[in-house]
């Protein structure tokens, strides 16, 4: 059981119709699992009064309808829900396997990252694909999933000058986070490969292969397999 007496949990005002719950101060699977549990329970408890929710690493933004409720009622519902949260371990999400074509051609920063780490490119690939990641948050752009955490040996700071154009599917590392770019966009993360799976497709059902709380593993594939799965190299600028 998690008690509100636990000082690490705080509820703060965010805006006229939004409260934010802080479950902790750092990236941690058990904190993230609590965020997910709270999402599910609050959805029921605030049914008809909720406008939207934004779960992230260690926080949950709760946006409510001011004509249906007020901050005092929402705060008291949140308190009640926090007291209901069980131990986090049993709330593991689905395991989603994402194919990954790691190479110099698909990941222009692979060599530099390896060199920086004092590893070979193959070792970087091994370290990146052996780890199971958690989806901590989805945001910034539709389908952009923040995954963590990469082995600290392959953690790398953002590029000093972000690229103008990163292709859709780019597998990238920034600090101890990793992600797959859902669409062509500017970006400053280190590119190490490409994933042929669409991370956001407005026409598909579901529109995204992953959701917050899911676990992700990258499965290395060959160049031929990448193209067979519909992958495209895309332009990097």
């Amino acid at each position, binding site marked *: 059981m998690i008690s509100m007496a636990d000082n690490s949990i705080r509820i703060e005002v965010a805006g*006229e119709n939004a409260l934010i719950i802080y479950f902790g101060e750092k990236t941690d699977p058990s904190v993230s699992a609590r965020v997910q549990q709270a999402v599910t329970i609050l959805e029921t408890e605030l049914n008809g009064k909720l*406008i939207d929710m*934004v779960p992230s690493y260690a*926080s949950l933004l709760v946006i409510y309808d001011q004509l249906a409720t007020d901050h005092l009622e929402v705060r008291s519902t949140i308190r009640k829900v926090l007291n209901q949260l069980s131990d986090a371990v049993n709330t593991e999400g689905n395991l989603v396997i994402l194919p990954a074509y790691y190479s110099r051609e698909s990941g222009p920063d692979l060599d530099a990252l390896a060199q920086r780490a004092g590893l070979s490119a193959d070792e970087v690939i091994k370290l990146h694909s052996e780890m199971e990641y958690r989806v901590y948050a989805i*945001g910034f*752009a*539709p*389908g*952009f999933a923040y995954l963590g955490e990469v082995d600290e040996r392959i953690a790398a700071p953002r590029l000093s000058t972000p690229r103008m154009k990163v292709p859709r599917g780019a597998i990238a590392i920034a600090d101890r986070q990793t992600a797959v770019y859902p669409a062509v966009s500017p970006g400053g993360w280190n590119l190490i490969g490409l994933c042929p799976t669409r991370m956001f497709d407005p026409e598909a059902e579901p529109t995204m292969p992953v959701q*917050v709380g899911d676990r992700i593993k990258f499965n290395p594939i060959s160049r031929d397999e990448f193209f067979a799965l519909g992958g495209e190299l895309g332009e990097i600028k």
Partner: protein
Amino acid sequence: MSGFRVIQPGLLTLIQDAGRFGHHRIGLTTGGPVDSLAFKWANRLVDNPLNSTTLEISFGGLVMQAETDAQIVLAGAEMPLKINGVEQDRWHAHKIKAGDKIEVSFSAQGARAYLAVSGGFQVEHSFSSSATVTREGIGGFTGDKLQQGDFLYCKPSGEHGGFRLPEEHRPDYFDDISLRVITGYQQQAFSDYQKRLFFSSEYKVTDRADRMGYRLEGPEVKPSIDGILSEGICHGAIQIPADGQPIVLLNDRQTIGGYPKIGSMIAMDTARMAQLLPGSRISFEEISIDDAHNLHCLAHVRFNNTEPEAID
């Protein structure tokens, strides 16, 4: 085919309904009208449900040809409305016939106007809304702003009675430049001195002001922290990046971010701010969340109790 053909799209004309809700979890932002009061009035004056699809016209320059009989209304910024070359009253429903030419000229005051048609424009929804967010390429016509040659479908409804809003109820966009803010989020990371500086200073709207956010320029406000673990951003949130210049986040904001936030502007006031052009000057006033709730509820009651005049 019944509807309107776009002869000239204007600088930035977007298809908007009330917005996209319940999809933040996959990273989709809200979209929707930046001045929700003018948007709601536009729909109400042609007797539409309040979330019907309209056009949000920024700055002006829209020309359309009617290919149906319908009622239209223009509410919001002072953009001269002409029907077949004759200037017509705004905040006032007008019957039009197939073949009529509708022109919305550049604004004399204010930045956004809403053009509604009886029955609403018929636009396919994506993620439960027609709201266009160009950054995401979602909503409207393939996620883009209106283009020359676009065709806006609507149902013929010329017989329908419309309304006009008496002058005294029409908002004045430049009366009050003090915008109300609830302190929150990382407000404890701003010292009393920094908060006082923020609430006692005047800020200028820069030319980097759009539907995603309004970047302001003025005295630097500095939090005691550089950044935070990325977290959800609500409408009106005021983030302070390293340069100390506030950014007020609006409808097309990214859903998650990592800059410290001093608090959030109330929606009634983001609507007024979104009517300001670059160079305008604003200041902030602190209010409590209880006062904000009261203002919101009172504004809702006032809107419902304000009876527009019926037109034959």
